[in-house]
């Protein structure tokens, strides 16, 4: 918490802080009827608190599989993955669900909001699974909607707002349980360039508050919002460089 408070006071984030993600010699092989299909061939990757990494790579390079494993949605075949200091492979299904609930916030390409529910209920959904009481759920969901600038749409439904707004609701949902890490899988893939920029600005602002982010994208100009660029190719991490000319220069007016 103190790191986050310090950031809000204007200090730069601390990329040399504690590791949120620590992956070593990670391999993943899918077993299919045609035999085993290796997808990841030994990945070493560390993401420290406050870092913002963009993952790029062609289709089939293994970046989606990598994200699924980072998100505790898929199991690894070999190597080791520690999330917030915990060895993920040692945890049972309920503990993994709890990690997804409290430590990670997901943002998807297709927004993945529940169409039947109001925006407020959508944002509050992770709090239901965290066992938070009703009054707190409402309050936190409204706070988060206000944070992404959609407070007045609390009682609307997803099909009543634009794609960019839906993605901001999805981000509010990802943030509602105060995660340390946001995993975003092509979050701008369904958006035009203007709304893409708005969504990326939001990610950058969150990062400045101290939340670590891993973002998968295939657009270089989107990747350049991040601080660090990671490239995958044929199941290997082939490049890991800082972003020199970032598209983000601080809080916009």
């Amino acid at each position, binding site marked *: 918490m103190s790191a986050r408070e310090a950031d809000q006071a204007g200090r730069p984030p601390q990329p040399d802080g504690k590791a949120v993600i620590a992956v070593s010699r990670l391999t993943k092989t899918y077993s299919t009827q045609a035999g085993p299909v290796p997808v990841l061939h030994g990945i070493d990757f560390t993401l420290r608190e406050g870092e913002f990494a963009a993952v790029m790579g062609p289709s089939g390079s293994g970046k989606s599989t990598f994200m699924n494993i980072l998100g505790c949605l898929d199991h690894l075949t070999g190597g080791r993955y520690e999330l917030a200091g915990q060895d993920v492979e040692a945890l049972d299904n309920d503990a993994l*669900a709890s990690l997804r609930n409290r430590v990670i916030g997901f943002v998807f390409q297709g927004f993945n909001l529940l169409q039947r529910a109001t925006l407020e209920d959508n944002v509050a959904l992770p709090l239901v*699974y*965290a066992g938070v009481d009703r009054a707190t759920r409402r309050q936190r969901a409204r706070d988060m909607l206000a944070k992404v600038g959609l407070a007045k749409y609390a009682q609307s439904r997803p099909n009543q707002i634009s794609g960019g707004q839906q993605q901001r609701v999805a981000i509010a949902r990802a943030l509602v349980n105060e995660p340390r890490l946001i995993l975003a899988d092509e979050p701008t893939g369904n958006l035009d360039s203007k709304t893409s920029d708005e969504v990326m600005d939001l990610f950058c602002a969150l990062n400045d508050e101290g939340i670590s982010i891993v973002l998968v994208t295939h657009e270089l100009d989107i990747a350049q919002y991040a601080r660090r660029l990671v490239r995958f190719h044929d199941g290997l991490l082939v490049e890991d460089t800082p972003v020199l000319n970032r598209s983000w220069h601080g809080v916009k007016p």
Partner: protein
Amino acid sequence: MNQRMIVPMLGEAWHAIGANRMRAFLTMLGMMIGVGAVVLMLAVGQGASAAVKRQIEAMGSHLFVVLAGSQQAGGARTGGGNATTLTSDDAYAIRELPGVTAAAPVVMGSYQLIFESNNWNTQVFGTTPDYLTARDWKIADGAGFDDSDVQAARRVAILGATTAKNLFGDASPVGQVLRIKNAPFTVIGVLAPKGQSLDGRDQDDTVMVPLNTAMRTLSGSRFRNAVRMIMVQAESDGAMAIVESGMKDLLRERHRLNGVDDDFFVSNLTAVANSAAETAKTMSLLLGAIASVSLLVGGIGIMNIMLVSVTERTREIGIRMAIGARQKDVMAQFMLEALMLSLTGGLIGVALGAGGAYAVQAIWQTAVEVTTQSIVLAFVVSAVIGLFFGFYPAWKAARLDPIEALRYQ
């Protein structure tokens, strides 16, 4: 899962059902018909059982009837009860057997009764006070006769409710004098109404007079002390077997039969009545069993619709898992939804079944009985059906792979 999650989950289940109203209604219709049929059938069955039970209670319990055997005259045989071998002394002897609480000798005949300008033909019983004990028959007005009335052959009569009403209207007959077969009798009491017997006869259409009075004044039999039948009451169900064999041995001895065929019949009225009650119960169970088949069909309908729902909402399940729903949370959500369908259907079904039962009662004048038990049973069964048939779809949902589910289109 804790109680903070139940309320939002209930809300979500409600919304999910509300999103497909027609489908939910059709699914619930299966449950409504099933539960409604069970409640209706149980009501009809239990109404019949209760009616039989009331008749048994009206008849009296642990009863035997001893009838005189048939008579043979020149090759022509009369029906049972016409022989003159059974006497009132037999009855008094049976009375002394262990386990017997009452033994009443009965003679009867149909006579014309006259009171002022009214007349009425009815069955007149000549008997002893034991008869009312055995039949558990109360006096509603006035008093019964006692043993001294029997000994002295006094001309007193107790009227059944129907007879009283036909001769005296609403006035009290006690103390009035009526004529039976032209002989004057003083009315000393009126019997409490008993209603129909098992065979549909009106038991209140009767008159009772002391045995000896009936024998001397009314039947005028050539055979002294011969009676038509003896009504015997055992003290309990357990004593009935002993009383029956004791009675037969006693009568064989008294009639000096020595291995010759019995000249009397003993029939166990309680056994007959119990078998009628058993029949009603079996009928009730059978109806209920047939109705439960439709309940089963309703349950399968729920399972079917829940499986469709799980498939349709695969992506939603993936989203929920990605944001932290545990397998048991997903499971609970779909179980709740199935439970809500079955219980709502069940609730409406109970109302339909109960309403139907009263409609049956109104239209066909059949006794029905909607018991709390059958309503609770219908509810519990709906819940069990919801849980049972909701389990597999919910389990399928909980076991989905989150990645596959998220990719599902």
